[in-house]
């Protein structure tokens, strides 16, 4: 679940970004829309505990990240490792490591023993079984994205953040990627947050029942102008 109230963040020496309120049940889906620079990345950084909001409250997966009783900085790495999955736009698979080794990184980061069975499982689920020994540069764009998705859902996160998941994909691949993203989120009943300005992604996600849409940047600094345009259409 994600709940935010009067959330605002001031960049050092820059303008203050104000975000619309969000209220999302566990397993829900949040669509962050808006042009580049509208604050999508900042919102993701706040939700991931990488930045601390200057005003307002934010609760992600039952954990307060902004407001009274917020999780201290030092504890956020551990929290992120256990509760958060992240699919970056540039994927950021390590070119030095094979696919399987890239998937071992979440265990390393979380300080957990490497679980080769879990890695094999997720590779199998995402149709990547044959690529475990390959290097990222030997994969197609779609395969690489599936590897990054596998890395994001490996530890069954409560919240799955995806940054522009369809930016570099053609129509067919984009549809497949979004379907897979939603399926994976549903598999671990994770709350899905997708930041995008891609029309195809917006359409696909708004078609999903229960998706909450949040438009950023329409009137930065005025929460009323950034009302959720999709509204809540499901339970």
């Amino acid at each position, binding site marked *: 679940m994600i709940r935010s109230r009067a959330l605002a963040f001031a960049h050092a020496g820059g303008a203050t970004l104000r975000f619309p309120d969000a209220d999302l049940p566990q397993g829900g889906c949040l669509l962050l829309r808006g042009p580049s620079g509208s604050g999508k990345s900042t919102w993701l950084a706040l939700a991931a505990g*990488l930045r601390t909001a200057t005003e307002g409250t934010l609760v992600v997966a039952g954990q307060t990240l902004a407001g009274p009783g917020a999780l201290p900085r030092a504890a956020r790495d551990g929290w992120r490792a256990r509760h958060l999955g992240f699919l970056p736009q540039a994927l950021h698979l390590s070119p030095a490591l094979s696919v399987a080794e890239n998937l071992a990184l979440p265990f390393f980061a979380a*300080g957990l023993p490497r679980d080769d069975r879990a890695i094999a499982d997720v590779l199998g689920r995402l149709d990547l079984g044959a690529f475990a020994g390959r290097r990222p540069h030997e994969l197609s764009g779609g395969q690489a994205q599936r590897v990054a998705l596998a890395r994001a859902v490996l530890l069954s996160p409560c919240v799955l953040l995806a940054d522009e998941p369809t930016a570099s994909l053609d129509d067919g691949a984009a549809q497949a990627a979004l379907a897979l993203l939603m399926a994976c989120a549903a598999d671990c009943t994770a709350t899905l947050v997708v930041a995008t300005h891609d029309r195809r992604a917006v359409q696909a996600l708004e078609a999903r029942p229960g998706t909450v849409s949040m438009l950023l940047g329409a009137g930065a600094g005025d929460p009323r102008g950034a009302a959720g345009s999709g509204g809540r259409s499901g339970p």
Partner: protein
Amino acid sequence: MSAAILRAGSVPRLAWRYLWSRPLTSALNLLLLTLGLAAVTLVLLVATQVDRGFERDVQGIDLVVGAKGSPLQLILAGVFHIDVPPGNIALEDFEALRRNPLVAQAIPISLGDSFAGYRIVGTTHEYPAHYGAELVAGRLWNAPMEAVLGASVAVAMQRAARGPGGDGHPAAGAQGLLGRTFFGTHGLAPGGEEHGGHPYRVAGVLAACGCVLDRLVLTATESVWQVHESAQADDPDDLAVLRQEREITLALVRWRSPLAAVTLPRAINATTPMQAAAPAVEITRLVRLLGVGADVLRAFGGVLLGVAGLNVFIALWNAVRERRADLAMLRMLGAPPVRVGSLLLCEALWLAVLASVLGLAVGHLLAEGVGRLLAGQNAMPVTGALWLPGEWAVPGLAAVLAFASAILPAVQACRVDVAELLGRP
């Protein structure tokens, strides 16, 4: 508990993968570090063994008395047997020296002949006793022309007997050498004229002492006289004259009290045709001369290590820049900054571990090579098959160097801003 161990093990594992993801850079770093550490190891091994060798051979010899000339040459010839002596001294003068009340012991040494490049030394039983030598076979000489072989000489003789040039006798260890005869050649280098008609007979073989005796053939002083007098004259009258003019090469002197250190050398140098040289003084001079070589090699090793350290630093610094996204991703996945920084440190430590092992191995191999070269000249015994406690400093040095090179890149890695990942396309 087991989880903690696994956790501790995953950093080295991942660091290892990152290290070899840039094989050329890592191999170059490894090479530089290895060469630097090998140079340090080599200097340590050789310098220590040469110092020890000098110390052991010179122990208990307060003064070397011989013909006038270079005092260093006298010591090198008389104590270490690695130079030719400056000349001979009259037996009469030696006897006078021996009777001097300040002298506790004077061991005569007569040089002139060699066997297969090993010196034949005419002396008394005091000489092997001085080094505490023990026999592995036979006994010491009781008559002229009986010889006792040092350990290295015995090995060489056994090898010669077995080899293609040998006489085919099956040599049954040191015991098998007893009773064998050999001829000395004139001069201290191999290839001199053979003294036919005066064969030496092996009476005993000494146990290896790690000292100068290993490389010598010991015999009675009279043997040397006998060989040379009959080589110069066969007329009984002439022989009688020669007997009057008997000489020895030099004497190793132990004085009765430290007071003699002041008066005895001065008295010898001023009032006799002999000179007295103090090994302690000359060895200090010699070690200082050799020390320049060791210092040059040590400095060379230092420069190599400095360059290696700088190279490791640059490589890791670049690695942090190249892998910024990787490191940020690790932080995004929840790795605390310390674990990300420790990856960099661990990568450098891997290099240090590998370079230590390789550097020590190469250093020992080189020391063994130097030892073989020196053995070819029958000089100081130096071996690579030796572990000095000081060598523990080599991995220590490597670890300190690796740590120093990696600390800045590691701090840089700790500071990677994760939120950058989100902003960039």
